[in-house]
């Protein structure tokens, strides 16, 4: 369990690698800074506020955790318990906190990828703080904290909806408000490619994420039961593999081409898809869910291009698209499949969507008013490393192409 936490932590390297790999070198420092900030601030914030918000003792009308109503002190609420640990074999209060804190940061990282290369650093920080500190734990409390979604029977094993689509919706709203990077769409509105500058990093990122998912899903068993954990790891891996193969195969048929980036996104799509029901599925289910997830990612990427939305790393396609799919799939495949379950899943997806869209829209509009969301044109062209990081260059000894 503690090692699962380590693996989930390691996912942040995966996200960083994926994100810098798929963007241009002139924004590399900026992206790394962003990711370092998210993980650091996420942990501290989650310790100070989020954890108690998400796992409250009681609810106000079943919606707002009481913690939120009552205490909002500066003194860290955890820490009080001291070493009075109630654990059941390998699973303690502290482990739980750390594991959940890493999850919280993940939601913000998803947004980070989508808004890369043009978002103002300070404004993004404000948004992620609110996302990690408020929106994520609030939504999380509805299900994992024992709130109304949990009571209704909504099922989300390790966060297809609670983590991935929360991040995904926020990302979608953010890129809608933000607009596309300069050069992403030509005058006629046709999408153009802005190739990532370091695909080996991106590939490493995907493999590290896959590894981290062992911890993400494996750890969500929340016990060291070897039978269930090993089943979860197996379905997780099989879905990832199927997602990658399906995405690459699908692109190969359409474009007659072996497209590495789609293979990568397909793997991630497979992983997100299986996350909601990893403990309920058999091998064949996992293959089907993962493969569909892979295809969905490919279609979603094209769809975004058509909508003139610019998501450099495919975060919306992966986390939102297959996050929804994975949540619904719990009602379609595996041991819980039933029309009822499907409808509950759908309702859950809808409620979370409504909340996240509203939350993001309000917060982003406010931030836009106060500080603005986007850097100015020259800064974007020069690269954010130049503008916001004192001209530090990521690869000082290399000759670069700039575009």
């Amino acid at each position: 369990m503690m090692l699962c936490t380590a693996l989930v932590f390691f996912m942040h390297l995966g996200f960083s690698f994926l994100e810098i790999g798929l963007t241009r070198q002139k924004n590399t420092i900026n992206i790394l800074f962003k990711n370092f900030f998210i993980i650091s601030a996420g942990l501290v914030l989650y310790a100070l506020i989020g954890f108690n918000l998400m796992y409250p003792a009681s609810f106000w009308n079943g919606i707002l955790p009481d913690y939120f109503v009552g205490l909002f002190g500066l003194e860290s609420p955890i820490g009080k318990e001291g070493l009075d640990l109630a654990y059941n074999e390998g699973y303690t209060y502290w482990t739980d906190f750390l594991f959940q804190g890493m999850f919280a940061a993940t939601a913000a990282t998803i947004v980070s990828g989508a808004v890369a290369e043009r978002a103002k650093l300070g404004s993004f920080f404000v948004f992620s703080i609110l996302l990690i500190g408020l929106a994520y734990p609030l939504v999380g409390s509805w299900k994992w904290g024992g709130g109304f979604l949990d009571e209704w029977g909504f099922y989300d094993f390790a966060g297809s909806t609670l983590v991935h689509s929360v991040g995904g919706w926020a990302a979608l709203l953010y890129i809608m408000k933000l607009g596309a990077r300069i050069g992403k769409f030509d005058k006629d509105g046709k999408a153009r490619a802005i190739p990532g500058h370091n695909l080996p990093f991106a590939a490493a990122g995907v493999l590290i994420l896959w590894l981290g998912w062992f911890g993400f899903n494996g750890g969500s068993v929340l016990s060291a039961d070897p039978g269930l954990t090993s089943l979860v790891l197996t379905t997780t891996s099989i879905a990832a593999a199927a997602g990658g193969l399906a995405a690459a195969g699908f692109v190969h048929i359409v474009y007659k081409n072996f497209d590495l980036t789609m293979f990568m996104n397909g793997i991630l799509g497979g992983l997100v898809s299986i996350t909601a029901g990893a403990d309920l599925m058999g091998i064949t289910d996992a293959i089907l869910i993962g493969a569909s997830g892979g295809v969905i990612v490919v279609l979603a990427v094209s769809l975004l291009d058509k909508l003139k939305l610019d998501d450099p790393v495919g975060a919306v396609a992966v986390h939102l698209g297959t996050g929804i799919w994975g949540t619904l799939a719990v009602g379609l495949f595996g041991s819980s499949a039933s029309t009822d379950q499907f409808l509950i899943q759908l309702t859950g997806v809808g409620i979370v969507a409504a909340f996240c869209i509203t939350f993001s829209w309000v917060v982003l509009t406010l931030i836009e008013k106060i500080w603005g969301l986007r850097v100015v044109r020259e800064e974007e062209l020069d690269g954010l490393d130049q503008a916001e990081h004192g001209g530090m260059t990521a690869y000082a000894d290399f000759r670069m192409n700039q575009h």
Partner: protein
Amino acid sequence: MKKIDAIIRKSKFHEVRQALHDVNVYFFSYWDVTGVGHEKKEHLYRGVAYSSSDIQRRYLSIVVNNDFVEKTVHAILEAAKTGEVGDGKIFVTPVEDAYRIRTGESGNLTLK
């Protein structure tokens, strides 16, 4: 024939390229160089602040027939200008002969 070498800001490249296109100059070669000049940039690295006059620029090399020189130069002059120190320079040098490797032909027609 003349060779027109232009040293411009990287961020102006797309505009210059478009401007060349508009005056029917479709062929050139470019690479990135470090320029040393008036302009200085501030940097900060691990607590050490320093300013450097070594700035990355783009070097365009365009060989054109004599009747194209003027409009090419003007296209660049306009498109590459920001008015700030560091906009760069254009140099015109003589070229004696040109060959197209594909066909082996030489002279003015290779530049069309």
